[in-house]
């Protein structure tokens, strides 16, 4: 690591924050700290901006070094030409660290931008100052209420943390997870990653007890050797999902060997993902799909599922998708079939696995409870995927809640994965908006929930592959 670990910890878990250069009318950085549990200070020299800051009840100073207590995190939002002075002040103040929102550095491709970045990087390194960014949204900490946008939640606990090279994707991964009821412990927007790089943050999150799952958005890495070695290490402790953007061919070059001519950037990234047991994603949806399965489902590398769909056509579709993702849809035991035959409506339905169950489940959940009770007692079944119905969800959540309770009972009893599916197609096709609303309801109730069989199957497949890999490397 480029900086002292304890100091980075201080910056990422601050008890006091100073915002340098916030501007009205919104004062976005100070406003983002309205729920922060510690002290907030402002540093602003512009006379026009100061009254608005004071009005918010925040003490303003003309320099970081005038603040009467230790500052754990400096949020720097000044124009780029001022940044070297702020870094120098933060070093002198011995601040814990700095998140630099200011942009206009190497990313511009201009000489002046590169020079300024060099200047702040050498000053931060010399002063041992952990600098997040520049050109980034900074850090979000759920427990402490340090936010870089208003919608970020404050609260205890956490299910995953995000590292993102892009501010936008850091926001969308955080917001997308939250919408599904997943608690994001921290999000770090790393921007130009000039002082601290991807590997530094990954190493921090490896050792962070509040981070059970890591989700990353990366376009490239600065220190590939260290990153590759570290990733192999981290995935042995906790799952890492990596969404890689910017699949360019940069770096390919004239080669004198066959091997070199075939070693495309994509081929090598793919190799790293497999070698390290990281979970690869191609989009924000894929990243969140995998994250849900990691957060919501128990660790399992087993693949024999019971698939419960609502109609005959859907029972074929669900089987195709889960089989394609590497799952088995086995026959149940004779005893299970005997019990199912006692109540299952076989006219317009089937219980062979996959299940075509609408005629049996109907408007009641009792029969779903019976089916799940039988499946829970059948040793061949190692998890279930269930197509849910959003019908009448706009009028009342009662029916969906009853289904959720039945699924919870199965989950608690068996400890096996339960994947829920609220496809916009199938029987819900007539009212897709209801399916969307119902999905977030099911997600917030604590289930992995997907808008299509294909996405649910793919996510469970990726995550099952990971747990299988973990079992192999731990063996």
């Amino acid at each position, binding site marked *: 690591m480029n900086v002292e670990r304890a100091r980075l910890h201080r910056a990422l878990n601050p008890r006091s924050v100073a915002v340098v250069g916030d501007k009205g009318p919104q004062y976005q950085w100070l406003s983002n700290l309205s729920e922060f549990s510690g002290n907030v200070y402002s540093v602003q020299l512009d006379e026009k901006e100061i009254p608005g800051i004071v009005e918010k009840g925040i003490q303003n100073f003309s320099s970081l070094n005038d603040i009467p207590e230790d500052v754990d995190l400096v949020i720097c939002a000044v124009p780029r030409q001022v940044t070297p002075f702020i870094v120098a002040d933060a070093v002198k103040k011995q601040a814990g660290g700095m998140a630099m929102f200011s942009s206009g550095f190497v990313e511009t491709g201009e000489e002046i931008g590169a020079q300024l970045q060099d200047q702040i990087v050498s000053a931060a390194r010399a002063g041992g100052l952990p600098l997040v960014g520049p050109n980034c949204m900074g850090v979000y900490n759920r427990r402490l209420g340090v936010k870089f946008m208003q919608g970020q939640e404050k609260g205890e606990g956490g299910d995953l943390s995000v590292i993102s090279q892009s501010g936008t994707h850091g926001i969308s991964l955080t917001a997308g997870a939250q919408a599904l009821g997943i608690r994001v412990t921290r999000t770090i927007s790393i921007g130009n990653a000039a002082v601290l790089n991807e590997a530094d943050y990954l190493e921090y999150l490896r050792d962070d007890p509040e981070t059970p799952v890591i989700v990353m958005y990366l376009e*490239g*890495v600065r220190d*590939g*050797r260290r990153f*590759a070695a570290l990733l192999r290490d981290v995935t042995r402790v906790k799952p890492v999902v990596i969404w890689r953007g910017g699949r360019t061919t940069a*770096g390919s*070059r004239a*080669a*004198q*060997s*066959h*091997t*070199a001519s*075939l*070693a495309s*950037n994509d*081929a*090598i990234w*793919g*190799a*790293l993902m*497999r*070698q390290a047991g990281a979970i690869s994603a191609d989009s924000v949806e894929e990243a969140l799909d995998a994250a849900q399965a990691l957060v919501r489902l128990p660790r399992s590398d087993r693949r024999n599922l019971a698939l419960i769909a609502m109609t005959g056509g859907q029972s074929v579709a669900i089987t195709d998708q889960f089989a394609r993702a590497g799952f088995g849809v086995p026959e149940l035991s004779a005893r299970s079939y005997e019990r199912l035959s006692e109540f299952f409506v076989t006219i317009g339905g089937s219980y062979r696995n996959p299940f075509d169950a609408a005629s049996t489940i109907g408007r009641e959940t009792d029969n779903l409870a019976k089916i799940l009770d039988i499946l829970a007692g059948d040793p061949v079944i190692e998890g279930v995927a269930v197509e849910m119905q959003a019908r009448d969800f706009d009028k009342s959540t009662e029916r969906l809640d009853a289904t959720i309770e039945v699924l919870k009972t199965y989950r608690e009893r068996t400890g096996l994965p339960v994947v829920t599916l609220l496809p916009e197609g199938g029987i819900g096709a007539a009212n897709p908006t209801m399916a969307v609303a119902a999905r977030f309801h099911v997600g917030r109730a604590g289930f992995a929930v997907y808008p299509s069989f294909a996405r649910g199957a793919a996510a469970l497949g990726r995550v099952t592959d990971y747990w299988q890999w973990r079992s*192999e*490397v731990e063996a």
Partner: protein
Amino acid sequence: MADIIASARAQGRSLLTEVESKQLLADAGIPVALAHLATSQKRAVEVAAELGYPVVLKVVSADIAHKSDVGGVAVGLGDAKAVRKAFKDMMARVAEAAPDAHIDGVAVQSMAKQGIEVIVGATTDPQFGPVMMFGLGGVFVEVLKDVAFRIIPLEPRDARQMVREIKGLPILQGVRGQPPADIEALEALILSVSEFVAAHPEVAELDLNPVFAYEDGVIAVDARIVLAEPAGVPS
């Protein structure tokens, strides 16, 4: 090892000859069909007699990247007469096709019996440094690009996965009554090349192409090593 690399660099070369490449690999315990440099027709016949027939002759020149393109390969030479004729004809063909190339001589090696052709290679990725590749040889690598990569250093499980990752795996397992390839020996070869490259940062690119895989054992029939530019010297 240091001698071969140092002398190549002293001559301003980054491409090692086949003879040099194979010597380095053999010294590291990697199974190669050793090639012996013969600078004259007479010496070629002597080496062939020592190795036993049939033999293969290949032109040795740091200026020639693709030997077969200039008529620089002769295979299946069964006796001294065939070696003498092949040597003479090859020199004439190469002189015509590549008049500016400096010719060191010919490499004489035992003709390996045909096995399943695979390629094992290494190169240097700009982001991740040394990486390894494995695939089936010939059309599988040229056209279908059916290859697997891993970042060096490899663990045994990486070698196991590489061999099993390629779509052509059934060919290695034996199809249409063909004997299967020695997959354990392939994995061992991949791991020893990984170790070789990890131990020698001067190696920028390496191709063992083809490697013949037999029911029992494997052997690299051709080898090529490209050295990295020494630090501080612009390319």
